[in-house]
């Protein structure tokens, strides 16, 4: 059956361009201008998917972003396929392939459909109640639940498409290209304001652009013709940017909005190549006009979810815009005048409207009078009590409503039909308004939440039907009036338009329509995507849920990818009716961004792969690469981790490097350590205040290790600081802590101690640092700088000298993080690689061994030196680390001093740093492993391992750990319970190697 549902008349579909596409593997045809949904309907395909829980057959229900059912998988490549796309929003292109979701093995025969028969057993909260106990069973249930739930399939490979981000600044942003948005944009552009108009469709004009009837006239033209002319004029404005196929996802404070612009999704594969697929617009607008319109509500009655049941306004759009008949025999069910407009359109196109069922007792608007003249049967004060047809509706049952609308009376009448249009009134799209912080108010006469003009954030306005105006004259007149004030306009051409339209006079609303059957025997669906019914909401209320947020989560109403655009109002209405609450007091659930789903690609833009984060490389990096270093990420830095030789494993390399460093000479690129240049006449006093130990007596040319605390007394960072001159110091920080230390020091200088004359400059990148250690380090330095006096008298441990290597100035410090006799050479970074190569060359005869971070960690652990951030975690004081020696007891104050004798920090049973030796010296502990005293349950956790290595220099396993009351437990045996064994350990001193520090001067 091809194309006999297509009527050949309209301006929106290009009948000269035929497009072939595939749905569930079947080749079909449509035309340029179609959506996938309109093309499927033209091919008489309504059944497109199965529902989430009961696997009921579901059809296309709407024509826009609110579509709950027709969500499909696009693309046949399982690596690049796009799940959960609304068929109503996919523009047809040559070669499109789409598939139904949530059905197996096929949409026509779905195994999961058995759930429909079980539905009395699957009420709200079924999963919560059934699968909660015993807790240990959850893992087993989860497998089955995950397999029977879920919508589309995720792609399995990285996205190959290109995405972009763009910052946009404008005077006025208009969201929505319907008639109120067009008028707003026009008024704004005519005032000379830099204006951007955004619409999610590929055309402008909203629903008015196909409203072609003599009832609706503006200045003696039909509304569609008038609007078309306005749009043509608008497009000529130089200070206006129009973004079609663009959807605003989020509206944050200060008029900051995110919008997703689709650039290639409507193009065929070949046309897409090398183009950017989507662009995320980050918009700052001085003023925002929300003209997002309204969406039609369904009606809630039993079996209201069958394929062929479509919103009445969507049926109108399919016939008027796409030229597609949604059925041969259509009935309409309504509580308002909208369905009459649909009936007029169908009648004009020669589609038989069987019957209009209107729950209102009467209706005498211009629209209903026009329908009466056509002879279409209208049943007033009636409701539909049931529908029939499994994969497509085939009949409806109709009964008279009682006066109060609470029940049905009389006999049921059955009508055959292959399509049913439903209209439950209109819901203003207030999502963006509330996201931005606006508050809603409830309008009782037509049951809508609309923006409260007194609780609207500044510099924004809602107009048109998103502001609750539904009649053409109200939309135009109120938009013009309010925009005039909002933008401060003078008189304009739109203030006295001659507008003719139908006015709705009678209203009647019943959230849950009655049936002749008890509610337990009916299936009145509320949320079509998540398969929750009005019964579920009532059950939740009976079970004691009161808050709408709780009812929502318990029943999952409104929690699908459509975020309940169709279902939320009815859920609220039923709750209000059942509990006897006014809907205005009940309020709404929270509207959260994004308005429609965003792709991850659009969110991340170009920030993928190597652009995900900055990479910092030292000046010596290329040498490390040439010498086959394995790298470790330390913050943004790439640091050599170890230098494997001849296929060594990491363990083998580290053992070799560690031995070489102690037996002859090792060299480390330490350039990543933070370096802060400190100058000013109060520099010494400043250091006194930020470090725990005393600094004023440090003489020029000397270095000192310092520990920095937070005000809470916990160790924050550490490093060596050198006094270069009277008022000049260079501070080193940990690699990871550099930026934070600088910020913290700046904070104190700017806010607490502005009286200090001190200047801080980061020089981490300007200076490179190489550390040469080991008994032969002295000989190597001597070879490079023969003139330098390296005697212990002239150049003792913890001192510094300015020197030159050839003509390159360098600072040489005799400091050691390994416990070996060591030198640290600091040179300007652009000379660093050359100097490094000089050191390697000079060290060759001593087998100088480059080592990485792993060996550095091992060597310092042998000496019991801490690494802040590895052995500390922000909960340890210097005393906890057995570093009481570094506290300047005589100092009046320093950051964190007062906290060191708070009642909590002087507790003796705090966790404290200790050394650990395993009873089996070959057994290496896992970092993070727990320490316990006994295995008797309940097991008391005493602490955990923070550093652990096999020491080649001691030929045994060593570890550092933090343990409750550790200081007092020296010699105590503890157990490290692992998955498959228990390891016995003994608490020791933290220094394992060269306890007397003899090697520093060796």
């Amino acid at each position, binding site marked *: 059956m091809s194309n006999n549902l297509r009527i050949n008349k309209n301006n929106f579909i290009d009948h000269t361009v035929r497009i072939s596409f595939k749905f569930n593997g079947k080749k079909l045809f449509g035309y340029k201008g179609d959506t996938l949904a309109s093309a499927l309907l033209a091919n008489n395909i309504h059944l497109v998917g199965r529902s989430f829980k009961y696997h009921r057959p579901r059809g296309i229900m709407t024509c826009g972003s609110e579509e709950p059912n027709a969500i499909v998988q696009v693309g046949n490549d399982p690596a690049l396929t796009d799940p959960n796309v609304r068929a109503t929003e996919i523009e047809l292109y040559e070669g499109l392939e789409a598939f139904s979701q949530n059905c197996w093995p096929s949409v026509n025969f779905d195994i999961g459909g058995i759930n429909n028969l079980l539905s009395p057993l699957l009420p709200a909260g079924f999963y919560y109640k059934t699968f909660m106990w015993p807790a240990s069973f959850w893992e087993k249930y989860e497998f089955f639940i995950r397999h029977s739930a879920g919508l589309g399939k995720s792609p399995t490979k990285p996205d190959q498409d290109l995405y972009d981000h763009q910052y946009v600044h404008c005077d006025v942003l208009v969201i929505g290209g319907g008639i109120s948005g067009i008028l707003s944009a026009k008024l704004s552009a005519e005032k000379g304001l830099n204006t951007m108009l955004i619409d999610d469709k590929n055309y402008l004009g909203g629903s008015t652009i196909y409203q072609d009837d003599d009832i609706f006239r503006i200045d003696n033209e039909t509304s569609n013709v008038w609007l078309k002319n306005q749009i043509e004029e608008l497009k000529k404005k130089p200070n206006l940017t129009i973004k079609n196929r663009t959807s605003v996802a989020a509206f944050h404070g200060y008029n900051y909005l995110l919008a997703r612009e689709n650039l290639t999704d409507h193009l065929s594969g070949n046309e897409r190549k090398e183009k950017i697929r989507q662009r995320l617009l980050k918009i700052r607008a001085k003023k925002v006009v929300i003209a997002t319109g309204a969406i039609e509500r369904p009606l809630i009655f039993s079996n209201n979810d069958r394929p062929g049941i479509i919103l009445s306004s969507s049926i109108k759009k399919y016939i008027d815009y796409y030229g597609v008949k949604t059925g041969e025999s259509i009935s309409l069910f309504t509580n308002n005048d909208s369905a009459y407009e649909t009936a007029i359109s169908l009648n004009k196109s020669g589609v038989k409207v069987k019957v209009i069922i209107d729950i209102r007792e009467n209706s005498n608007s211009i629209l209903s009078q026009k329908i009466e003249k056509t002879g279409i049967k209208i049943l007033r004060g009636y409701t539909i009590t049931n529908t029939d047809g499994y994969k497509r509706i085939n009949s409806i049952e109709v009964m008279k409503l009682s006066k109060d609308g609470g029940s049905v009376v009389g006999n049921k009448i059955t009508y055959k039909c292959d399509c049913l249009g439903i209209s439950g009134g209109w819901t203003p799209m207030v999502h963006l308004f509330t996201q931005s912080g606006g508050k809603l108010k409830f309008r009782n006469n037509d049951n809508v939440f609309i923006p409260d003009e007194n609780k609207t954030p500044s510099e924004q306005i809602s107009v048109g039907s998103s502001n609750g105006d539904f009649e053409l004259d109200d939309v135009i007149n109120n938009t013009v009036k309010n925009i005039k004030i909002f933008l401060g306009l003078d008189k304009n051409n739109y203030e006295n338009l001659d507008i003719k339209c139908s006015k709705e006079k009678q209203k009647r609303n019943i959230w849950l329509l009655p049936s002749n059957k008890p509610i337990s025997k009916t299936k009145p669906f509320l949320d079509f995507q998540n398969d929750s019914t009005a019964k579920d909401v009532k059950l939740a209320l009976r079970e004691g849920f009161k808050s709408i947020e709780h009812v929502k989560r318990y029943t999952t109403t409104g929690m699908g990818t459509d975020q309940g655009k169709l279902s939320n109002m009815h859920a609220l209405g039923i709750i209000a009716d059942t509990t006897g609450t006014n809907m205005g007091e009940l309020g709404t659930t929270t509207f959260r961004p994004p308005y429609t789903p965003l792709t991850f690609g659009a969110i991340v833009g170009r920030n993928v792969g190597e652009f995900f984060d900055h990479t910092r490389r030292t000046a010596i990096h290329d040498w490390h690469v040439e010498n086959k270093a394995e790298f470790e990420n330390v913050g943004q830095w790439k640091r050599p981790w170890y230098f494997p030789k001849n296929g060594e494993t990491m363990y083998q390399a580290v053992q070799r490097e560690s031995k070489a460093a102690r037996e002859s000479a090792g060299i480390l690129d330490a350039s990543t350590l933070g370096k802060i240049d400190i100058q000013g006449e109060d520099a010494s006093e400043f250091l006194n205040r930020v470090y725990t130990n005393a600094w004023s007596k440090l003489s020029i040319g000397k270095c000192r290790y310092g520990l920095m605390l937070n005000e809470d007394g916990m160790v924050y960072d550490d490093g060596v600081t050198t006094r270069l001159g009277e008022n000049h110091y260079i501070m080193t920080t940990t690699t990871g802590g550099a930026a934070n230390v600088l*910020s913290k020091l700046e904070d104190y200088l700017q806010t607490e101690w502005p009286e200090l004359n001190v200047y801080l400059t980061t020089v981490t990148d300007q200076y490179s640092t190489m550390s040469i250690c080991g008994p032969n380090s002295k000989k190597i330095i001597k070879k490079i700088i023969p003139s330098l006096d390296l005697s212990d008298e002239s150049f003792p441990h913890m001192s510094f000298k300015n020197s030159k290597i050839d003509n390159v100035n360098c600072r040489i410090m005799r400091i050691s993080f390994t416990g070996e006799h060591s030198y640290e050479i600091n040179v300007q970074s652009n000379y660093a690689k050359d100097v490094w190569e000089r050191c390697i060359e000079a060290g060759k005869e001593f087998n100088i061994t480059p080592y990485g971070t792993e060996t550095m960690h091992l060597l310092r652990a042998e000496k019991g030196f801490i690494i802040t951030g590895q052995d500390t975690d922000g909960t340890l004081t210097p005393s906890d680390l057995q570093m009481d020696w570094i506290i300047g007891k005589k100092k009046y104050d320093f950051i964190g001093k*007062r906290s060191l004798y708070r009642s909590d920090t002087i507790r003796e049973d705090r966790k404290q740093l200790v050394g650990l030796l395993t009873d089996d010296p070959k057994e290496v502990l896992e970092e993070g492993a727990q320490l316990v005293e006994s295995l008797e349950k309940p097991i008391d956790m005493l602490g955990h391992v923070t550093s652990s290595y096999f020491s080649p220099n001691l030929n045994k396993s060593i570890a550092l750990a933090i343990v409750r009351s550790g200081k007092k437990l020296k010699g105590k045996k503890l157990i490290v319970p692992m998955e498959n064994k228990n390891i016995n350990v003994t608490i020791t001193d933290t220094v394992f190697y060269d306890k007397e520090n003899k090697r520093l001067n060796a």
Partner: protein
Amino acid sequence: MFIINCPYCGERDQTEFSCGGEAHIERPKQPTELSDDQWAEYLFMRKNIKGIQFERWNHIHGCRKWFNVVRDTSNDKIHAVYKMGERPPVK
């Protein structure tokens, strides 16, 4: 995401700044003379107001200067910005 008018640079996006919490909490000049309770008051207790709050902000990805901001935490509206050491504007 709001816009902050840095007193040194002008209006910039919030992403350039970092918030340093409640303003006008002076570090005690003589901490050693305080009781545990008094020190804890300085160290831990912050108001966390819903409404008008005085805050410290740092233009960390800009001029790196600290300054004060009067912000309504319920709607992020910024009522005033002033430099360190300056008196807060009278409400």
